[in-house]
């Protein structure tokens, strides 16, 4: 019996919510819906919400908005991928959403194939990978490629799948420079002219968790004009 991916839709407009639910159910997803951020957080906190694997989150919500919902999902320790629904060109929204911990975003109005592709890519990031089994240690940072855990000086650091993927991708070839486009293709599986802010935001969130001084990163370094590289530590 194939595993049914379980998705939570957080969208205040009933028609849009129903449309998304209809399409996703048809394509074999288990769907929960919430009309407000409060409902969504309540649902995620219940035992029934524990097997939710991904949230599709509209930013424009009555009550607490999507940014706040995203922050609280992350604050609760949940690492499920969050895909934001945003209006095209509301650039500040995108940046704020990514900083709040979203992994990806789609622009409204979104077509079903696009939404599905994003959901699939996000879910794949959360699956275990066998890039290079083993444990690498860099100046106190331990990356367990088998167990997909990261710890620093013995303290485990929970990382959402996107940030973990970025770290795995970079640390697989220490010292090699990865362009933002490369990372978009390999981590997000974007096959279009992607948005490098996704990468920058993910790297920013990652640094906040693994670097001693995020402003002067040691592990994930910026190579101006080209991209990022891991180390040299």
């Amino acid at each position, binding site marked *: 019996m194939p595993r049914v991916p379980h998705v939570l839709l957080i969208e205040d*407009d009933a*028609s*849009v919510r*129903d*449309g*998304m639910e*209809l*399409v996703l159910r*048809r394509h074999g997803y288990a769907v929960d819906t919430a009309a407000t951020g409060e409902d969504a957080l309540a649902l995620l906190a219940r035992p029934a919400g524990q097997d939710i694997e991904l949230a599709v989150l509209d930013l424009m919500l009555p009550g607490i908005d999507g940014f706040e919902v995203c922050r609280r999902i992350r604050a609760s320790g949940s690492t499920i991928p969050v895909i934001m629904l945003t*209006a*095209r*060109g509301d*650039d500040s929204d995108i940046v704020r959403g990514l900083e709040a911990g979203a992994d990806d975003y789609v622009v*409204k*109005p*979104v*077509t*079903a*194939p696009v*939404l599905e592709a994003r959901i699939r890519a996000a879910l794949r990031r959360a699956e275990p990978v066998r890039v290079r089994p083993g444990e690498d240690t860099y100046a106190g940072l331990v990356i367990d490629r088998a167990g997909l855990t990261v710890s620093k000086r013995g303290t485990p650091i929970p990382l959402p799948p996107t940030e973990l993927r970025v770290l795995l991708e970079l640390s697989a070839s220490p010292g090699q420079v990865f362009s*933002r*486009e490369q990372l978009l293709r390999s981590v997000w599986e974007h*096959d*279009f*002219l992607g*948005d*490098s*802010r996704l990468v920058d935001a993910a790297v920013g969130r990652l640094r906040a968790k693994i670097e001693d001084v995020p402003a002067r990163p040691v592990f994930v370094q910026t*190579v*101006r*004009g*080209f991209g990022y590289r891991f180390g040299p530590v």
Partner: protein
Amino acid sequence: MRRGSGPRKDAPNPRAPWKVWGGLRGRLLIGFVLVAVVSAVTATGLAYRESRNAVLERKQDAVRTDFRNRVDQAAADLAVPPDEVSLTRFATGIADGLGDTVVVAEYRTLRASSDASADRTRISRALRDAVRTHNRMSLQRVDRHGSPYLVVGTPVTFDSGTPSGLDVYAISSLRAEQDDTAGILDAVRDGLLPVLLLTVALALLAARTVLRPVRELGRATRRHAAGDLTSRVTVPKGRDELADLARDFNHTAEALETSVAELREQEAKARRFVADVSHELRTPLAAMTMVATVLDEDADRLPPDAAHAARTVSAETARLSRLVDDLMEMSRFDSGAARLNVGEVDLAGTVRNTLALRGWTERVRVELPDGIRAVVDPRRIDVVVANLVGNALRHGAEPVTVTLAASPGGDWVTVEVADRGPGLAPDVLPHVFDRFYKADSARTRSEGSGLGTAIGLENARLHGGTIEVANRPDGGAVFTLRMPWRRGEGAGG
């Protein structure tokens, strides 16, 4: 923030230095001086003529009377015909009572003069003829060697009135009279320079009273042209035309400011309305777009008519969604909310991506030199290039060529999209970037929203660049995206 009616950087018509003297002031000055000179010269001329005439008349009358008396007296003592001695005595006798006068007496061929050295040519033939034929006193003014003389000639008649054959001429100098009248000219000449200086001063003063308000008006007008509609002029005191003009200017400026403010307010409202409408449309569209795939997927299982309807609804939903997207994008440009989200990219890669994404790689010839890295907003460049190439493929004819190049100076990068179609009609060229402009009715059902080129141009402008359009001499339209080449910190050279 870019507004169509916003202040312009270029100041209109900066004042040229020649205008200081070649303008109103110069003209006023020349006018004043001309009037002064003409009136001075005219008045002087008239006065000179009158006084000269008066002086000469007086002199003539005096000479005539004296001369007649002297001739009458002397003639009584002269025996006719005279000999040279008696004739000379006769002439000298007349001259004695006439002061500085030479007297010449002529009898037939005999001539005698009171002054032997005198120049007799001063008696002209015309005078002689007049004296002989008219048989009366005649006079003539002659100039000899720069000196004016009055020559009076009279025949001596017998008491019966018949001519005796004796003619007497008196030649008296008019130098004294000339000097008298010349004095007037000297006086005027000496007085003319101060008068002229005074005139110039007055002209400058007049010019200043006229020019200062005019200049101020000019400055205010230029400020208006530069977009500052709040500028006003101080109204000069008094009730003259300049004060009226200043007042009228201020009223006009006020009216203009009010109506421009109203227009801007209306424009802002209209823009907000478009933005709001687009925004409101988006939610139902989001639902429709989402479920459109269901219609597409199940269309095959529907009856033919229903299938057709389902596919149409799905396709039109996609079009409507593009249109609303473009409307929102346009309204963001209009409201100045459009922002660049820049990153340093390799432009060749960006263009290749654009083509690959839309499946055009096989259909388009490219010249994309590597290594042109620039700081741009890749999403916006993608939109521009996709629109240009899409238009070329749709409305032009293949082969479509995309050429990336950097200017030799390294200041600009260009992306040129050329097709081999018929090119654009001359009446279409100026409107290519207009919103919803359709070159011909056949294109009203085109794929685009009608905003593509307008959005492309706005995207180029956001980068500080532009899009140019032209027809190639050998056929086909060429659109050129031209942007300043901003290099990133990581780019070498």
